Every structure is written in C-alpha cells, then in structure tokens.
C-alpha cells in the first residue's frame, strides 16, 4: 500500500484486518502522504558551470598527480596540445608543447658545438699568440681581461674547455657598448674568424617571428647584458617598470629551472665573458631569482620569497611568461633594453627543459574555467654583468 499496490482481493483482506487498528491505518496514510511529499520535491537545475568545475579539478589533479593514481583514461579538455596554457597556473611539462629532440639529435648537436668550439679556440689561441697581429675588439673596455675562465669553469655544471689564452674573443657586448668599436669588431671577427658560439647560431639579429618560433620550441633565451644585474633584476622583481609589467605576466624560476637556464646560458655564452675583468673571483656573490610578482595584476599567485642562491658571478636568471606573439616578444626585448643595456635573442641548440616547482596553492587558479585562460609562453632571461 505504501511501497506498491496489492491485488484488489488482498487489499480488501488487509483493510478488513486493520478495521480495528486506527493507528495502523493512520501510519499507512501518513506514509503514503510523506512519500508523495518527497516525490513532489522539485527538481532543481544543475549549476551551469558544474562541468567546467569538474574539468578544472581533473586538470588540477592530473597536474598534481593526485586523484586515484589510476588514470589510464585521459581526460582531455583540449589544452594538452600546448596551444592553450593558463596565464595564471604555472607551466607543467605535459602542457609545455615543446618539441623535444631525440637524444641522438641532441648529442649530435652537442658534438657539433664542441667541434666548433675547438676550432674557434684553436683559432683564438693562434691569433693571440706572441707577436700575433690580431686586432681583437678586446682592445676596448674589456681589454684588461684576466683569464678567469679556468677557475670559473671549475664550478660551472657544463664547463667549456676554453683555454686561458682565449682572452680577446668578444662579440656581442662590444657591438653595442663600444661605440665606434663595433664596426671594427665585426671586421676583426671576420678577419680572425673568432666567433662566439651563440654568434654561430645567430649570425644576424633575430627577428621577432624567429624568436617566437624558437620560444615555442624552448630554444629561445633572452640575454641581457647590463651594467648592474641587481638593478635589472630589481626592475623585474618590483614590477615598477610599467612597460615591462605590461608585457610580462609572471616571473618565476624554480631552483631546478634556474639551474637549467644557467647551464644553457653558460653553453651559449659569448667567449668574452670568460675573460671579462668583471667576472671576478669564482665565489663572487650573484643571484638566481625566482621572483615574487604577486603584487602585479594578472600575475600568477606566487607568494614565496625570491630564492637566492650563490651561483656564478654576476649572473641572474629568470623565466618570464609572455603572450605567445611576435609583438609580445619584441615588446619584451624593448622593455628590457634600458639605457646602457644590451638585449639579445639567443638561439639555443637544445631546448631548456622546463619543470618548475609546482606548489598546491598555484593550482587554485585551475578552478577557473579554461575559457578564462589565456595562452602564455615561458622565456628564460639571463642577466649578465660583464
């Protein structure tokens, strides 16, 4: 009677039995009424953003490696292809969209670089020998270069086998900072065949389009040669420079990421820095930064203090997020290029693996629906003070 219907005959028999049990009849009638009341509860519409929230949670869980630990079924929201990356959450390997070279190709590239380095070094040694008439651009402000390479290389993760005698090799810095020297420098380079390694990779000024293509592959580095690393880093950290702040959406470099960038910068470093008098002793203080930019608008939610480590002298590295467009990359270069600063796009032979530290609080942003995300691209920036 409450849960279903009895056959008519059976129902009559039951009612006959209950004739003298009014409390039973009352209970059954109440139960029927209550059941109807429950059944009449209106159905409410599910929140429109419910599925978006589910997607966001799944994305976050997949990034954090959380959940059940058994996710053979891929839950795709269309952003795994590297075309869409949240401006707010940090990058993750699976979303980087970087083209990875095969190990064989990478080793081949490294071997080619070493061969080139050997040739260049040999040439430099020959040109800088006693009685050599080589007129290197090092006759400029960096002429007093001391052969600091050996000691600095000792604590460099990937030390190039550059001999101490390679002092006069210089290209990039002198082009912009030596005034009349660049023309002479270029001719000297051509005459002597002394080329910095990154110059081999980038013989002409790189276009923004080319830089964008490299950035997508993780093979772009922005090299900033400045008179004061501290000042340049400060501009990045504080966000006071509105031009810079308008281009860069976030600044970050985990210690591991900074290490990789530093290694890549070391490999791509022009030779003159090995002998720069300002390179100083190998234990000179310098910084690797992971800057807090949480005070900036539309900047990732990062609250940790900048990570300061003692690394190679006069160098600081960061990874900045910018919009993946040639205009944005060009603007970044312009914004970094203050007076007395030289900014250069550097093509790296190998992509820098990006695997920044991932903190749970960063995943908060992943609760935002993907439709609110904007794509960004991470570019390593190396500040060097010669």
């Amino acid at each position: 009677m409450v849960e279903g219907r009895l056959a008519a005959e059976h129902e009559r028999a039951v009612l006959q039995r209950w004739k003298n049990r009014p409390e039973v009849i009352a209970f059954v009638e109440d139960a029927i009424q209550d059941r109807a009341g429950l059944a009449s509860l209106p159905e409410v519409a599910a929140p429109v953003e419910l599925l978006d929230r589910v997607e966001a949670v799944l994305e976050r869980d997949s990034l954090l490696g959380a959940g059940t630990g058994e996710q053979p079924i891929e839950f795709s929201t269309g952003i795994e292809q590297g075309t869409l990356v949240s401006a707010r959450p940090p990058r993750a390997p699976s979303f980087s969209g970087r083209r990875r070279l095969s190990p064989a190709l990478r080793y081949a590239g490294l071997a080619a670089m070493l061969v080139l380095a050997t040739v260049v070094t040999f040439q430099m040694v020959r040109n800088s020998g006693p009685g050599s008439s080589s007129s290197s651009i090092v006759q400029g402000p960096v002429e007093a270069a001391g052969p600091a390479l050996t000691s600095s290389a000792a604590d460099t993760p990937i030390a190039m086998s550059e001999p101490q005698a390679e002092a006069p090799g210089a290209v990039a810095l002198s082009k912009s900072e030596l005034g009349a020297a660049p023309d002479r420098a270029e001719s000297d380079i051509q005459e002597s065949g002394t080329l910095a390694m990154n110059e081999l990779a980038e013989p002409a000024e790189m276009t923004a389009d080319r830089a964008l293509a490299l950035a997508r592959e993780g093979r772009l580095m922005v090299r900033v040669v400045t008179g004061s690393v501290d000042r340049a880093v400060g501009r990045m950290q504080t966000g006071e420079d509105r031009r810079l702040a308008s281009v860069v959406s976030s600044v970050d470099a985990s210690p591991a990421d900074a290490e990789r960038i530093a290694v890549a910068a070391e490999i791509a470093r022009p030779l003159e820095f090995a002998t720069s008098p300002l390179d100083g002793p190998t234990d000179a203080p310098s910084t690797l930064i992971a800057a807090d930019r949480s005070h900036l608008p539309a900047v990732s939610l990062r609250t940790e203090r900048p990570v300061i480590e003692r690394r190679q002298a006069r160098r600081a590295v960061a990874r900045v997020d910018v919009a993946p467009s040639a205009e944005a990359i060009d603007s970044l270069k312009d914004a970094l290029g203050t007076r007395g600063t030289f900014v250069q796009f550097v093509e790296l032979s190998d992509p820098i693996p990006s695997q920044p530290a991932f903190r749970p609080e960063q995943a908060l942003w992943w609760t935002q629906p993907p439709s609110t995300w904007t794509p960004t691209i991470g570019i390593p920036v190396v500040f060097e003070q010669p």
Partner: protein
Amino acid sequence: MPERPGSPSRSSQHPAGAAHGGGAAASSASKAAAADEHQDLALVQAILRGDQAAWRLLLGRHQANVYNLCFKLVGNRDLAEDLAQDTLVKIVQHVQRFDGRAKFSTWLYRITMNVCLSRLRAEKVRRHSSLDDQPYEGAPAAGSGLAGREPDAPSSVQWTEQHRNVLAALASLEPEQRAILVLRDTRDLDYDQIAEVLEVPVGTVKSRLFRARAALREALEELEPGGDDDGP
C-alpha cells in the same frame, strides 16, 4: 483505502506513478530507460576507446540527476554543488572500473551516495566532537520555522511550505535514512536497486526503509505541531 483530505494523489505526484500506472505508459517509460541505459553504455565504451568528446556528453546527461540527488540529501545548494562535482570527478577517474554488470545509473547512484554519505558522516562526527547540536550546516533546520524563509534552493523553483518541511525533516534524519528515502521516493528505485546502490541486503533495505518512514513522520510532526490534518 480512502485518501486523506489534501493528500496528493500518487499517480499525479509520484514519479513512479507513470511507471507504475501499467499499460502503455509503463512500457514507454521502460523503453525510454532502456534506451538511456544503452546510450550510457555506448558513451562509456567510447570513452574507453579514447573518444574525448564522450566525456562531456556522459557527464552532461547525468549532472542534473547527480546534483539533485546531492541537493536532496544535504539540503544545501553550495554543498550539493561541491558533492556533485566530487561525484562527477570520481566517475571520470573510475570509469574503467564500470564493468557493465550493473546499470550505469545504478553505478552512478552508488558513487553519489558514497560521496554524500561520507561527507554527512564526517560532518556528524564533527558535530558530535564539537558538542554542537546544530543541524547540518546549511540545511534547513527541523523545527526552525522555515515558513517565510526561502529554502536553500534555486529561486526559479517553486517551493511550497510542504516542500520546505519535507526537506527540513529529511535533513534531520540519519544519513542512511535520508539516502534510502531519497533513492526510493525521489528516484523510484526498487528494493533490489537500492540494495545494490547501498550495498546492503534487500531485507536491510526494507527494514531501514520502514524505520526511515517512521522517523520522517516524526520529524514532520515536530515541524507541524498542530498536526497534519490540514494536509500539505
């Protein structure tokens, strides 16, 4: 049995009315349910084959059902949304465990119930430990005089005083009692399905259902001190 004045007719108000009405209507509902189940299975198979678009289709088909189930169990819109979200996430994460032996809807109800009951039990423990005798946070309080107060539900839905009282009474029950009443009376599951969802024997379902009805009646009478002779 004569109906009490004001008692809603089962055939008009109970969702099972159509299904139990017999004849063509029951047959039609049965066919529709079978078709739905078939579509669910097809979507699950598509997901297992790697069809990414099938996710949204499957979840979209059931999100309202899951949300409503959660809402009626907890009586709180925000909490129901959280629980529905957790449920749908678990469905995605565990879909490979669905072996097709049970109906997909049954499997989905089981996950929903597990998520909701876990939360309700945890909340009950929390309330006990804090000596806080308040009803579940956000749920309409039994005897709190919900008349004149908007229920915690989307405003587009017409909520009567009866609905408010039923929801409040439901919220005052033990989680297991709520679950069995909601499954039986708002989702029209039969005893076997409820037993499968709650993973208890059918006999337990029957006895628990009886106690739940008695508890609900008691709670409603507390909310209606003047008796219920006036009907809803």
